[in-house]
């Protein structure tokens, strides 16, 4: 199995605050890596660096062996091969769901509209949103919006999918449908790097769980190991805080 993503000693600071501290992480093809950790531990920042929404201060990131942190690399081309979904404000509110999904294929890859729409509808069908294709995002529930956003991120057939706390802003009863979709994606072999608070979900979908603390990966391993029997005291502290209501 090839390595899709390789982060080597990545460093990122905002002003005086160091958010990522010489962090190294590899994600193999078809692997699902879940990042857990407190707010400010660097999970979102790492995802944004991988997607070139932030520039790293030091270190390298390789995608399929190519150095994407090289200033000469074409950022737009890189981003076409990586999909990302955020916690909120994903869909473009002034377009229908279908237009949202077909925007990139039509504008970036110059796919003609009928073809783009057929493919988009097929994808939406698979997640049960074909009926909402001509609606505007404000008519969809939060869970439907996030699922549509995931479909949109997949329409380019990306090598890697980044999910940044995609269920954190949803009402509890809507979280399940989104997690089910991600589970299906894993079964289809999608390589994913996920930041989440949902420990139960991490347990069911992760091949590997990484605990981030103060910009470094303090501990990583299979979910049973990290979540049930963490070796680091800080990991235990973090998990205990989550467990107590």
């Amino acid at each position, binding site marked *: 199995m090839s390595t899709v993503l390789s982060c080597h000693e990545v460093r990122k600071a905002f002003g005086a605050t160091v958010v990522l501290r010489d962090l190294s992480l590899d994600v193999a093809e078809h692997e699902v890596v879940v990042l857990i950790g407190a707010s400010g531990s660097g999970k979102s920042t790492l995802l944004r660096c991988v997607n070139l929404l932030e520039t790293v201060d030091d270190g390298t990131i390789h995608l399929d062996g190519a150095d994407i942190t090289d200033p000469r690399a074409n950022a737009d081309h890189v981003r076409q091969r990586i999909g990302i979904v955020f*916690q909120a404000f994903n869909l*473009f509110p002034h377009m229908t769901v279908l237009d949202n999904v077909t925007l990139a294929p039509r504008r970036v890859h110059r796919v003609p509209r009928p073809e783009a729409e057929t493919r988009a509808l097929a994808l939406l069908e698979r997640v049960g949103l074909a009926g909402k294709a001509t609606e505007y995002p404000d008519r969809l529930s939060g869970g439907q*919006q996030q699922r549509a956003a995931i479909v949109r991120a997949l329409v380019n057939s990306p090598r890697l999918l980044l999910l940044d706390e995609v269920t954190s802003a949803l009402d509890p009863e809507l979280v399940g449908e989104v997690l089910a979709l991600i589970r299906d994606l894993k079964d289809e072999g999608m390589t994913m790097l996920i930041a989440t608070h949902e420990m139960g979900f991490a347990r069911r979908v992760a091949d590997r769980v990484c605990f981030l603390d103060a910009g470094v990966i303090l501990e990583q391993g299979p979910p049973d190991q990290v979540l049930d029997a963490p070796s680091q005291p800080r990991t235990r502290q973090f998990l205990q805080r989550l467990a107590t209501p």
Partner: protein
Amino acid sequence: MDHPSTGSPSALDGDPYRPSDLQLGRVAYRRRQTVRSVIVAAVSTLVLGLILAVAITGSPGWPRVQDSFLDPQVAAKSFVPVLRGLWLNIRLLFFCAIGALALGLTVAIGRTLRPALFFPLRALAALYTYVFRGAPLIVVLYLFAFGIPGLRLTGTPSVLVLGGCALVITYGAYLAEVFRAGIESVHPSQRAAARSLGLTYGQTMRHVVLPQALRRVAPPILNDLVALQKDVGLISLAGPIDAIRAAQIQTAGSFNFTPYVVAGALFVLLAAPLIAVTDWLTLRAARRQSSVGTA
């Protein structure tokens, strides 16, 4: 809470619920209250109107004021000259609005460019908005319409064009700031999502940011255009005859102020459609623009 049915259960949608007497009593009470407040509002408005009318028309100077401001003959005589002047206002408004919008949008986009490479452009754009929002329009008009011809350069355009440029440059600065506020109000995740789909900066602007930004700032922009409609007339200080100037000329000839009233009425009529469009757009934008994300 149970509502005992009061009538036979034949209903249009199969729902056997019928309102209780208590509920019917509440509804009837509220209806009476509404009717009462409407009547009170109507009567008090009428009374106030009557008092004002009586106070104004009964005052000692009213007949002369009426002659000075509401003389039908003078109104009729000045109508065509004022209308001809208004045509200048309309033409100038059309071209200056387009120019100011284009300039404003360009400067706004220029100010939001992030890469360090564009720093000189951003600085220039910022300087422009500072200078021309601060400079009084009349001063700019004088400089353009009197100063530039004074340089005696060959090919100096007419005073009308120069004045139009002064208006475009001054209003462009205000519009630029409104556009910029709109662009920056679009959630950064929207831009991130667009870039993440592989769209270039230009494509992101065109398909994601600007459509949202423009819808958001349409009301304040149109508001500024209504103001422009009136300021356009200031060009008359440089020679051209606009509606107000035409009214002024008529007034001086007859020593009667009615032409100003005529001009004012025409201006309001001219602005009314634009104001109506603004209101309609605000309503439509509010409906569509609810933010995405939370359920």
